[in-house]
Structures are given as structure tokens and as C-alpha cells.
């Protein structure tokens, strides 16, 4: 677990539990993420969009891919070669391992061990997300997630931009009893903000719960709430609904989010690892086709034509090794 994890949590700022009279959000649905292969063949689990958590329930989020965890043998590591996006943002958070990226504007970088890349695709960009050559050659552990965040209509044509959030920039908080570590990537928790700059109110938190730890935190009523178990198991909501690795819980309305780790969390780690997601729904029509998410079908057709004609950008010459594959 290299994602930024201090040894001592008691010195971190604490998020106090809401008053006992605060309404805890009930769990409305639990979905087990189906497994599939993405890009050049790397394994992901995708809890949404799904039948149980569709665009309406996930709004303002569009998609969540749990990447791995996978222990690659030498020569096995796979990535997502060049592809376009338009109309939303991709948030890539790496817990273990390394991912490199390049884009059609000449940008690029490395995401590693607790780091986040927050890419606003906006009007359109081409990029790739690849394992570094060393990981391909030697193999190794890879674990993370990619989240798609929708943009409202007036921002879908905003110029593309990146936020490279290093692990050390992540805001660290703990629970009232200091038995839960919360890494705030973006949004606000207990009055403290994470480093990510968002276009609409969005909260993204990676939390680690010690065995039997109880998390009860304020969660703005205007936000939706989804908890995804990256590893381990625990009980979600006031009724204690069991969620395990690879499952997402969709919460109903209320003012507090509750979760308790199992005394012996199932899975490879000592702790329960979860992703806490919340945001104010955008409530606009969604037209989605592969890597394009717009408001109308006509905009999807335009996105496809713009991509095909190179208006979204082209692969930089230095990246192109010739012999087009398609």
C-alpha cells in the first residue's frame, strides 16, 4: 500500500462525527462490479455505469474502473494506447505502481503511488495511458482506479487541461478515533479541502479503515454518495449492509455517511480500502458513445467526425512509430 500512508494517524486533523441526531444515509443498492478487459487488455472492474447504478444515480460521475490489483509477470503489463475523449474529465489515481501518459498537445507525465492525474478532456484530446517500459520488462504490482466526471453543457467545450496531483499534495485526515485514514483528492470533508480543482462540486476520497474501525462523517445532502470497496469488507449505512471488494454501495439521502470495517477484513490487506465519491448532480441529458459524452446525439456525431478528421488533435510525430495499425 504505497499510496501515501503515514505511520501515525493520531496527529492528523480529525473529522468529527456528526451529532447523533444527524440522519445517516441508508444504502439503497449494492452492485458487484463485472470484470472486463480494457485498452490493450488490462483487467478492470466497473461498478458503474450499470443496471443498478446508472448515469442518473451516479451523476455527476459517469464511470468507475477499478484497475487491478494485478501482479504483472515480465512482459505482461498492458495499457490504454492512443484514444480520444470529449465532454468530461478522467481522474486516474494510482495506489500501487506507475502509469505514464502522453497527449496530443505534447503533454505527458507519470502517475505513481498515491498520485492523481485529473484530466479535463473538455473540447477533445487524444492521449495514452501506459505502463512504463520498466514495469513491462520486469513486471510488478499495479492497482488504482479511473473515474469519469461529467461536465455541464457550458463546459463541454472548455480547452483540455491537466492537474498533476502528487501523492504528497493529498490532504490527509483521520476519523474521530484516528482509526480511519482519509486521503482527500478533491472536494471538501469536515471543512478541509483536497488539492484537486473541480468544475462542479465533487468529492473524491481514498480511505483506509483499520479492522473494526467506524467511519461516520458529514456528507452534504446536496451530494450523492457512493462507496466502492477496493479491498476488504465491511458494513455500510445504518443497517450495516455488507460490502466486499469489488462492490459499490449507492446511498440514499441524509447528512452523514457511515461505514464500519469488518473485524477481519476479507482480502489480502489488513485494512478495508474504500473509495468515497460524492457530487452535486448535473441533471442534464447525457448522450454517450464510447469515449465521448455529450448532451445530444448530434454532438456525438460531431465528436466522432472531429476525431476522425483530426480536429481533436493528432498523435505527436515523436510518438508515431509508423505502420499504422488500423
Amino acid at each position, binding site marked *: 500500500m504505497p499510496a501515501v500512508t503515514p505511520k501515525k494517524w493520531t496527529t492528523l486533523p480529525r473529522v468529527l462525527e456528526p451529532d447523533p441526531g444527524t440522519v445517516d444515509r441508508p444504502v439503497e443498492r449494492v452492485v458487484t462490479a463485472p470484470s*472486463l478487459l480494457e485498452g490493450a487488455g488490462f483487467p478492470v472492474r466497473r461498478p458503474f455505469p450499470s443496471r443498478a447504478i446508472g448515469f442518473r444515480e451516479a451523476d455527476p460521475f459517469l464511470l468507475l474502473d477499478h484497475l487491478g490489483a494485478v501482479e504483472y509477470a515480465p512482459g505482461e503489463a498492458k495499457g490504454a494506447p492512443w484514444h480520444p475523449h470529449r465532454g468530461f474529465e478522467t481522474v486516474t489515481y494510482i495506489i500501487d505502481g506507475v502509469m505514464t501518459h502522453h497527449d496530443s498537445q505534447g503533454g505527458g507525465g507519470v502517475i505513481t503511488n498515491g498520485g492523481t492525474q485529473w484530466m479535463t478532456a473538455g473540447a477533445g484530446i487524444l492521449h495514452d495511458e501506459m505502463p512504463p517500459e520498466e514495469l513491462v520488462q520486469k513486471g510488478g504490482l499495479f492497482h488504482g482506479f479511473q473515474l469519469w466526471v461529467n461536465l455541464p453543457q457550458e463546459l463541454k467545450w472548455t480547452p483540455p487541461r491537466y492537474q498533476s496531483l502528487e501523492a504528497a499534495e493529498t490532504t490527509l485526515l483521520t476519523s474521530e478515533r484516528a482509526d480511519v485514514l482519509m486521503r482527500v483528492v478533491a472536494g471538501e470533508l469536515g471543512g478541509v479541502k483536497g488539492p484537486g480543482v473541480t468544475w462542479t462540486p465533487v468529492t473524491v476520497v481514498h480511505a483506509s479503515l483499520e479492522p473494526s474501525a467506524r467511519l461516520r462523517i458529514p456528507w452534504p445532502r446536496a451530494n450523492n454518495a457512493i462507496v466502492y470497496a477496493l479491498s476488504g469488507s465491511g458494513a455500510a449505512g445504518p443497517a450495516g449492509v455488507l460490502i466486499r471488494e469489488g462492490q459499490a454501495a449507492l446511498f440514499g439521502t441524509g447528512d452523514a455517511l457511515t461505514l464500519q470495517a469488518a473485524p477481519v477484513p476479507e482480502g489480502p490487506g489488513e485494512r478495508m480500502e474504500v473509495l468515497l465519491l460524492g457530487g452535486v448532480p448535473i441533471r442534464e441529458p447525457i448522450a*454517450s458513445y464510447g469515449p465521448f459524452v455529450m448532451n445530444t446525439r448530434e454532438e456525438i456525431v460531431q465528436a466522432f467526425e472531429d476525431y476522425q478528421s483530426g480536429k481533436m488533435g493528432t498523435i505527436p510525430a515523436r510518438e508515431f512509430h509508423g505502420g499504422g*495499425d488500423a
Partner: protein
Amino acid sequence: MAAGMRNPHKGNGTSVGEVSLVINPGRFAMSSPFPIGNHYKPGPVPLRTDPADADVVAAPLPMGGGMRIVVYNRETLPVRVWFCLPFSDEDALTKDGPLPQ
């Protein structure tokens, strides 16, 4: 290939490894997924059409299940297209693919 570029290939039949799709007017259609490697670069999709001068747009795109060749028909009549999948002789779906709502 520029948008609407005509296919240079000749012939009417479907050869081995070739994909055939029938696309309704103003609709998308897509091939079955094809495997790609880390060094894959999307590029032009040479294709032929019936009618021969049909205005269609084709490009590889990551879709559900993997990378696919997606074709959009700008015509007001159905168009049949033929093209080859990269790295694969796999036959493709012939299903017209309307946009999911």
C-alpha cells in the same frame, strides 16, 4: 482517411478477414472488438462502399468490449461497407448499431 474519403479498393465480394457492415442512414455501426497491443496507434481505415461513392466516416474507437472500427453513414440511404480489421481475421458483426440512449 479524411471524412467521407472514398475507398480505393475494388470488387464486390467479401474476402477472407474482411468485415461487412450494413449501416442505415444517419447511423453508426461497429465491428466486433479486435485485439491491440501497447504500441497500437489508431489510423485511417481503408474501406469500400456500396454505393461506391457513399459518404461514410470510419475510425477505430475504444468501445464496450475493446477497440472496434466504428463507421458513420452520412447518406440518406443504407450503405454497405467492407474493411479489414487490424491484427485479426475475425469476422465482424453485421448489426447496425444505433446510439444508446
